[in-house]
């Protein structure tokens, strides 16, 4: 039949290819990015955010960072609420990635204050010593182009104002990347929803501080808190900490749930035990005292 007829063979092969193509690739357009999965609070990128996104693409950040959180227990614990289709309607192209050499960034927006990102992008290893991410301080040297940005917004069909375009002047590429990162995953109010309500009475399991325990606790503090609050609680990106200002319970709740609007991440995923240790370290740390 087709064994000796190349044109017929090609036609049939094309038909075979198009069956699966039509069903799994064309058909989903009927549901995806329609009213079915629309999320009203999701907004397009501003000119500055879109510039940041384009720099993220240019530098191939997606080779090491994913941007989609799967509905799996440990993944939601680690990164935040799982990703929803409607959150990506303005993403051209999608940036879900395929490999997590570094952590997922789908919910990075609002996790840290801007200052954290600047410091981290300037020199990732100054904050995370064993990181294999290289420095992006050089992005500060390049400025943004409002003319090009306007063309981009027109092609994308995103709303923009002349004021927003004017603001691009004087900003550099790093500003744009930080603005983009702060937008990621923050269009839905997941962080408030994810906050854990602490029920019952909180009981400090380590009420009496001992010098030996302080040493162990300091290790945990250094790993999770020092990048913002300084090695001696003196404050840098985050405020200076003085344990005397808080009760045990206040400190615990602050660390456990973070300050969603204040740029302090929640540390509930560390577990209550570690959070209590940090609480006690902050509570009983004496300025100038070291626990090598």
């Amino acid at each position, binding site marked *: 039949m087709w*064994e000796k007829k*190349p*044109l017929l*063979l*090609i036609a049939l092969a094309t038909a*075979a*290819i*198009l*069956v*699966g*193509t039509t*069903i*799994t*690739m064309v058909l*989903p357009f009927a549901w*995806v*990015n329609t009213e079915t*999965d629309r999320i009203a609070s999701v907004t397009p990128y501003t000119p500055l955010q879109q510039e940041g996104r*384009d720099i993220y*693409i*240019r*530098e*191939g950040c*997606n*080779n*090491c960072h994913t941007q*989609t959180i*799967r509905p*799996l*227990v*440990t*993944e939601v*614990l*680690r990164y935040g609420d799982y*990703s929803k*289709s409607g959150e*990506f309607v*303005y*993403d*051209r*192209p*999608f*940036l*879900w990635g*395929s*490999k*997590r*050499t570094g952590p997922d960034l789908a919910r990075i927006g609002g996790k840290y204050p801007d200052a954290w990102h600047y410091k981290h992008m300037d020199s990732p290893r100054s904050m995370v010593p*064993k990181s294999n991410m*290289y*420095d992006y301080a*050089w992005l500060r040297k390049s400025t943004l182009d409002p003319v090009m940005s306007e063309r*981009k917004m027109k*092609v*994308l069909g995103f709303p923009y104002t002349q004021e927003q375009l004017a603001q691009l002047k004087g900003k550099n590429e790093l500003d744009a990347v930080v603005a983009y990162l702060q937008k990621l995953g923050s269009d839905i109010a997941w962080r408030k929803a994810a906050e854990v309500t602490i029920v019952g009475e909180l009981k400090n399991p380590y009420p009496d501080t001992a010098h030996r325990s302080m040493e162990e606790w300091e290790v945990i503090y250094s*790993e999770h808190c020092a990048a913002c609050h300084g090695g001696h609680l003196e404050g840098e990106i985050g405020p200076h900490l003085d344990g005397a200002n808080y009760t045990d319970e206040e400190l615990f709740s602050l660390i456990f749930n973070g300050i969603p609007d204040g740029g302090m991440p929640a540390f*509930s995923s560390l*577990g209550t*035990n*570690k959070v209590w240790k940090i609480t006690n370290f902050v509570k009983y740390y004496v300025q100038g005292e070291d626990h090598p």
Partner: protein
Amino acid sequence: MEKPVYNTDIVRSFVHWSLLWGLVAILVGVIVSLQMVEPDLNFPPYLTFGRLRPIHTNAGIYGWGVGVIFATFIYMVQRLCKTPLWSNKLAKFQLWFFNATIIASAITLLLGYTTSKEYHEMEWPIDVMVVILWVVFAVNILMTILKRQEEQMYISLWYMMAALVGVAILYLVNAAALPVSLFKSYSAYAGTNDANVHWWFGHNAVAMALTAPPLAMFYYFLPKTTGVPIYSHRLSIIAFWSLIFMYLWTGAHHLLWTPVPDWVQTLAMAFSVMLIAPSWGSVFNGYLSMNGQWHQMKENYLVKFLIIGLTFYGLQTLQGPMQAIRSFSAFIHYTDWVPAHIHMGTMGWVSMISYASIYYLVPRIYGRELYSVPLANMHFWLTLVGQLVWSISLWVAGVLQAGMWNATNSDGSLTYTFMETMVEMYPYWWARAAGGFIFFLGIIIFIYNLFMTVRKGKDVVAPIVTAAGRN
């Protein structure tokens, strides 16, 4: 009948250039593997992991993989059709345009002009070049088939024709974009749709560029090497239809647990498992063709490359479906397991078959005996060992990191922070770099051996293939 005069010059040129791009791909691969363990080896803005990694993948797929496809298809189609190439001029244009496209890709990617879509990073002007290149190639091959002097069509021709059509459809659909400037465009699809279209492309580029063409080569070069026909032509036909039909359903197995509709994911999962059948149809066909010929595994370096390459194809098509199952994907996806899987396919299957094809071609396109069989054997072992070190170290790394990502304490909190899991990867990343370097030594020896063949090889005197097998 007068013996037709085949165009071998163009085959030679494609062999040369594909080898150069293969060398570049592997070298850049070794460099980026070192950048992952030593961040100070990144030199922004151009020489960073983020920009070099797409050069590694695209040089590998489009320079090395497609270059070998061009060389072998043009060689095979003339002989299987017993007729010269339809247009030598078109082929010559194709050669120069191919190199222009690869060079333009490399330069623009270094400059940061990228769409970010994996294995399709090149911006739209280069997409246009790729489309022209592929159309020129496809027309030349198809016209040669249409004017063939041999009525029967061997299975290799089937796979070639499917690949020509398949790559064209995939590339065109996924390339659709809204240009902003010459160097910047936005995908025509958004978010979840873009992801689904892209992995429909991504997975089937593997089918149409890295599975069907190497199968065409395998089905051709194995019997030509051993002198014994394949076990069953009809089995190869059933496997052919099943393979090209089922592959296109499976793209979303790259997107399990993402916002892509569940039913698309489920179909991808089911068809991925079903794909074991046609894949192993070809594997069995290859093994059964070796009936009574297994002694050639010891005597003939070409058979070694072909059969071990086929074995990696078999393993690849078992491991792939395993990863395409939701539960296993939940555990392993996004870890180093996945690159280990891909590299078993590219270093084990595609490169082994490509090496074998070139070894087969060289005496026939140069009229020279291979300079050194011991060197070819050494090349085989370096390739095999390099690939195994590469993949096994990252399989272990992947399982380790996945385990750490999923570990929880008794109160339901996470046992490890992300960084605690990442630092555990360093020793395995070093091992991977070592594996890549061993593989790199292999291709250096290969190229040296071919170079010496051309310069100093003995002229071929006897007919290369006799009915009893190789001479």
